[in-house]
């Protein structure tokens, strides 16, 4: 034995949606995004924990069903295990679907990898009257096993100790007896130098999972495939799975009892939400309620923040001697930052509702409801997750499109993502809708989001006709069970979002406000630079009834969309240092139709800098980033112009 190591690598591996990321967060104190649907984790992530003097290095791998499949997530996990074998694997297993989860476990065991098993969601199973004899199961698998729960952390110490004990785990490969022809094939392959697990993996994946080294192996392998294909109708994957499940059922027979049905409440929920006729209306209604609540509930705390900000502004104004610095602080910094800070409650509420839909398991159902529509416009079913994430921030949403392998579907998903209205645009909507459509603000916001989706789908349909498809990717999705979102993870999630928003205010929005103030204040005599710039570009926007102020605000939104709200506040400097003043000024300067057009323009026009950078990186070329910018600008102009003219007739 070498000297005692002080640093060990532990990989978390398990089926999708079995709670790996929750457990990872518990173990490392990280706050990675979780959700009750498959595929939230796309690439692997790392975290550290020091425990009893030993450095634990945790890797959270994407959820996979099998090591023998060849999808992106599976390849990430498989390549990781081969290229940099971890010291120990923490195999996370969902107690509610034990047999299928253990199928992956047996693949690990056959490979002879050192593992510790964490049994998640045992409480859910027990609530439904099932039970698992942990001791018996552990004996059967000859591996340490313990119950865990990603939602509370009282067992983490115990789990860490268990990991610590197993750092030098000696492991013998598991031997499962397969059907005689499969055994014959395994023998043939082991004779040309493959190990048993490599042979099995090779057969299971029909030659994809394992690299063959020399011609003799390739020849033998091909012969084996032909022989087996002649003897059996079933695929090799099926025959091997039968062997696996045979072994697992033998194991579970002794150690578990479970009900095979959904619980009554779940069944009822599915009957309603997935109902053929009610499903879609309920989905739309839920979204409407979400935006209505985001606006109405958010306005109360927003008023308090507004009052505090204007109080601070007045105090600073009264206490400081007149100087440029004072103007900078009061008219630039406090006004601009405060103007966006006011929308913190709305942003937090929106994220709360989205998290609620995700964690309860409703989002996966919504994906099912909209799948038909999505496939009609050339979108892959897997595009749903990136599109929904786009409501939060387009940057991670575009990155999560990596799960889509078919290049055309992935490209379309990336390019239409900016039309999914991200949370940065919310402040602009709340501000303008509150001024011009006070009574129907929620409905107006809902319509804007719907318009965004509509535009996204239309563009997707057009792109699908112009770009050629490589191949069809199959869409098979597992619906997760309904789960009551845990208060703790919801609170963490919302807190994180609030912190992000505040960080962004302290960064790009603060700097943006100062820049706008600077351009607004100089030269000291004559027309300010900002106004000159605004008036120069304004003719472009005149057909929508925008003044130079709105023009400048839109230009500043290139940096980040929240800056639009900040700019409006700074540009419409009013004596009253609060939102009421801005509302009055904007309300008298703009016609309601222009206000609506401004919202539509904000929704559709070019993505923010961070998103452009992401598009370039993910598509690998500036070309698509440029396409995205141009597409956005053209659509925004046409859309805003149409909306302005149509709305002028009505309002």
């Amino acid at each position, binding site marked *: 034995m070498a000297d005692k190591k002080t640093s060990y690598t532990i990989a978390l591996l398990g089926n999708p949606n079995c709670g790996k990321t929750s457990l990872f967060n518990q173990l490392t104190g990280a706050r990675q995004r979780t959700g009750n649907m498959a595929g939230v984790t796309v690439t692997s992530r790392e975290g550290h924990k020091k425990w009893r003097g030993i450095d634990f290095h945790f890797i959270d791998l994407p959820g996979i069903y099998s090591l023998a499949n060849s999808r992106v997530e599976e390849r990430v996990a498989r390549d990781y295990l081969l290229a940099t074998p971890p010291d120990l694997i923490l195999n996370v297993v969902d107690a509610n679907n034990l047999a299928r989860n253990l199928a992956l476990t047996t693949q690990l065991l056959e490979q002879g990898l050192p593992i510790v098993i964490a049994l998640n969601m045992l409480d859910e199973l027990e609530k439904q009257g099932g039970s698992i004899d942990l001791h018996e199961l552990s004996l059967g698998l000859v591996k340490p096993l313990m119950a865990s729960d990603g939602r509370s952390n009282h067992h983490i110490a115990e789990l860490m100790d268990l990991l610590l004990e197993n750092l030098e785990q000696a492991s013998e490969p598991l031997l499962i007896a397969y059907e005689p022809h499969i055994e014959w094939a395994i023998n043939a392959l082991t004779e040309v130098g493959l190990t048993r697990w490599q042979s099995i993996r090779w057969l299971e994946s029909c030659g994809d999972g394992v690299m063959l080294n020399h011609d003799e192996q390739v020849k033998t392998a091909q012969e084996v495939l032909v022989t087996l294909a002649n003897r059996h109708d079933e695929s090799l994957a099926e025959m091997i799975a039968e062997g696996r499940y045979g072994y697992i059922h033998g194991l579970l027979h002794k150690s578990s009892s479970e009900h095979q049905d*959904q619980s009554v409440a779940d069944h009822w929920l599915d009957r309603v939400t997935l*109902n053929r006729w009610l499903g879609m209306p309920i989905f739309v209604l839920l979204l409407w309620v979400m935006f209505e609540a985001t606006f109405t509930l958010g306005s109360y705390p927003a008023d308090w923040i507004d009052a505090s900000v204007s109080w601070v502004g007045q105090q600073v104004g009264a206490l400081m001697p007149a100087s440029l610095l004072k103007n900078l602080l009061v008219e630039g910094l406090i006004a601009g930052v405060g103007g966006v800070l006011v929308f913190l409650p709305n942003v937090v509420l929106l994220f709360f509702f989205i998290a609620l839909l995700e964690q309860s398991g409703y989002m996966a159902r919504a994906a099912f409801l909209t799948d*038909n529509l999505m496939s009609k416009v050339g979108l892959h*079913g897997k595009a749903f997750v990136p599109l929904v994430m786009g409501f939060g921030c387009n940057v991670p949403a575009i990155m999560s499109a990596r799960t889509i392998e078919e290049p055309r579907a992935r490209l379309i998903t990336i390019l239409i993502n900016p039309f999914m209205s991200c949370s940065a645009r919310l402040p602009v909507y709340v501000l303008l809708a509150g001024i011009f459509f006070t009574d129907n603000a929620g409905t107006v916001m809902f319509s804007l989001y719907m318009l965004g989706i509509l535009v996204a789908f239309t563009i997707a349909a057009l792109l699908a006709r112009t770009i050629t498809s490589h191949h069809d990717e199959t869409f098979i999705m597992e*619906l997760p069970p309904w789960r009551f979102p845990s208060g703790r993870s919801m609170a963490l999630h919302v807190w994180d979002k609030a912190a992000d928003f505040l960080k962004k205010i302290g960064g790009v929005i603060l700097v943006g406000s100062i820049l706008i103030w600077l351009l607004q204040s100089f030269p000291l005599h004559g027309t300010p630079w900002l106004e000159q710039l605004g008036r120069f570009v304004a003719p472009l926007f005149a057909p929508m009834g925008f003044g130079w102020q709105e023009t400048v605000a839109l230009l500043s939104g290139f940096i980040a969309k929240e800056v639009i709200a900040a700019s409006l506040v700074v540009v419409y400097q009013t004596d009253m240092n609060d939102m009421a003043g801005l509302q009055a000024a904007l309300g008298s300067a703009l016609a309601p139709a222009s206000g609506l057009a401004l919202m539509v323009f904000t929704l559709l026009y070019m993505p923010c800098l961070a998103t452009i950078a992401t598009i370039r990186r993910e598509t690998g070329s500036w070309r698509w980033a440029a396409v995205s910018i141009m597409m956005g600008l053209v659509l925004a102009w046409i859309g805003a112009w149409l909306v302005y003219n149509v709305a002028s007739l009505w309002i």
Partner: protein
Amino acid sequence: MFSMTLPELKTRQQAIIKTIAGPEPLRQRLVALGVLKGLNISVAATSLLGNPRVYSIGKQQICLRSKEASYIEVELQSNGG
């Protein structure tokens, strides 16, 4: 005993999976998800236009489009309900 493909299965009918055909990646995927020969399967939900549908297999609910589902042949068990 009556054999049919999965999309032909009607709501409230129970069936047993007989064979899984189709391209190799699809078969591997289904197997990995636990869709195996001999298991009970029924329709859990149908979307507005009838495609895709959700099937329940034991406690699992799996959403399949007709195209993929048509590779799965099932045997009708009962017509009850």
